[in-house]
């Protein structure tokens, strides 16, 4: 394990020194700005109603050479007492080849499809909100990862196997957050994901992921060993859309002979893009379920199970803007079912290099 703790440091040296063999683009470094934002109006049982300015997310990518790239992403989130600024992603990546790209920094955890495909890009996702299992601030699945990541594509095209292998800090003292300021223990987290994305099946992806860590469970309790396994299948080519994802999150006290407690979470979402006179409209529906272990010390604050049914309509009224109306019926723990209705305008600010698409 001591060797594992040395690897991130070695990679930090390797990535910047590798760029000496890379060529600068013929027109100098290339910068790619991009942004996402949303405004919602919420009607809800027993919750605050009214207008909600969601997140404003800014992303800037700088291709310093043809192989060395810096990715940055920051978000501003509305709170009752102002706005919270956060660094969502920040990493330096060196592309050795299609099969091997190495980076260091802060990422979206690669173990969840939704987390990597949409994350803060609300306009990219069909619905107004993320599934409960991957919701921001949730303790279930770590949405960010701080460390090093090796990734690549094996046989792009016909086979189209993509992998990601990461070594990093794991969860922070607040397990809903990544360990940005250093690891809270001496055990580095390991994450692995492999996705099948053949180019002959546009929009199809199937994959599995794993995450292994030790997480704190309080001052007096022993640490918890954590094992997360996930699987997904997604078909998002255009007219039909189908996404289904499952995760099993397991914890056991870090003492000999302790058994793992399992929490199961899943969702399935389907939508259909209408054509003809109704082109631009996309009705959708999603079911969600979290079956939380009642004795898992890490999830005690979750308050038990969660299930939800979501139905809505998305209207792409402009090229990079969409209006969504969504009805959600959900129940957390042993509480009453609650209903909410959200109308949301979401947009993207983006252009391909050269200023046009």
């Amino acid at each position, binding site marked *: 394990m001591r060797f594992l703790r040395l690897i991130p440091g070695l990679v930090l040296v390797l990535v910047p020194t590798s760029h000496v063999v890379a*060529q600068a683009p*013929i027109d100098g470094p*290339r*910068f*790619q700005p*991009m942004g996402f934002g949303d405004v919602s109006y919420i009607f809800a049982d027993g919750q605050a109603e009214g207008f909600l300015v969601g997140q404003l997310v800014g*992303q800037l*990518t*700088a*291709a310093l050479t*043809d*192989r060395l*790239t810096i*990715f940055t992403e920051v978000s501003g989130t509305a709170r009752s007492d102002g706005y919270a600024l956060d660094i969502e*992603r920040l*990493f330096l*990546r060196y*592309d050795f*080849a*299609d099969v091997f790209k190495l980076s260091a920094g802060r990422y979206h955890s690669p173990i969840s499809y939704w987390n*990597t*495909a949409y*994350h803060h*890009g609300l306009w*990219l996702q069909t619905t107004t909100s993320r599934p409960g299992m991957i919701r921001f601030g949730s303790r279930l699945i770590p949405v960010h990862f701080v460390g090093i990541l090796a990734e690549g*594509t094996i046989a*792009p*095209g*016909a086979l*189209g196997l993509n992998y990601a292998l990461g070594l990093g800090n794991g969860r922070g003292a607040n397990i809903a957050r990544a360990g940005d300021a250093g690891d809270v223990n001496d055990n580095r987290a390991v994450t692995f994901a492999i996705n099948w*994305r053949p*180019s*002959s099946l*546009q929009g199809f992806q199937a994959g599995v992921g794993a995450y292994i860590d030790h997480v704190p469970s309080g001052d007096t309790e022993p640490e918890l060993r954590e094992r997360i396994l996930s699987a997904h299948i997604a078909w998002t080519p*255009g007219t039909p859309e189908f996404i289904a994802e499952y995760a099993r999150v397991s914890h056991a006290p870090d003492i000999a002979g302790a058994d793992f407690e399992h929490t199961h979470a899943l969702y399935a979402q389907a939508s259909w893009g209408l054509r003809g006179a109704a082109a631009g409209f996309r009705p959708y529906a999603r079911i969600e379920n979290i079956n939380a272990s009642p004795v898992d010390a890490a999830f005690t604050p979750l308050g038990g199970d969660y299930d939800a049914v979501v139905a809505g309509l998305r209207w*792409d009224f402009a*090229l*990079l803007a969409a209006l969504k109306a969504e009805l959600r019926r959900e129940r957390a723990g042993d509480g009453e079912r609650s209903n909410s209705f959200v109308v949301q305008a979401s947009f*993207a600010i*983006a252009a*391909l*290099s*050269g*200023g*046009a*698409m």
Partner: protein
Amino acid sequence: MTRQRAVTRRNRWIPFQRRAAARSPVAHMRWRLALAATILLAGATRPARAQNPADRTVAIVVHPETMVSELTSTQLRSIFLAEQQFWPDHSRITLLVRAPVAVEREVVLSRIYRMDEAQFRQYWIAKMFRAEVATGPKIVYSTEMAQELVTAIRGAITFVPASQVGPGMKVLAIDGRKPGEPGYPLN
């Protein structure tokens, strides 16, 4: 004064060209030149597909030093989707794509990407968002610009009308067929 008003009133009912011709031979010539220029301009700005159906054949061209002379349709699609970002000699692939409205862009979107314009934009925005590419494809605004850049940027690949392949451009065979040959897939 009264006579001048009467002439003016009468001229309103005379067709414009006859009035122009009536003014002077020089004015007549100018009118004809303007008409000819308008017809020429209209012809030049009309979409190329209306001029020559053969212009819908698209050639895939690469930088002359690229060590590839043939691709399969699957490989081509993988490169244009940026799933494959490096050539076999490990040089970076630079994708050049024509701006909207060009006929060759329509062909490439339908035959290679299998997407419409909206899906194409969403594809690249999602690709950039997921950090799978640093930037989107480089946009070119004319065939001449595509020709110039593909011969200047090592590892570049683009597409041009087969009838406008310029000197120094290396044309790739797709599935073993060059543009114009029976069975060529990018028509």
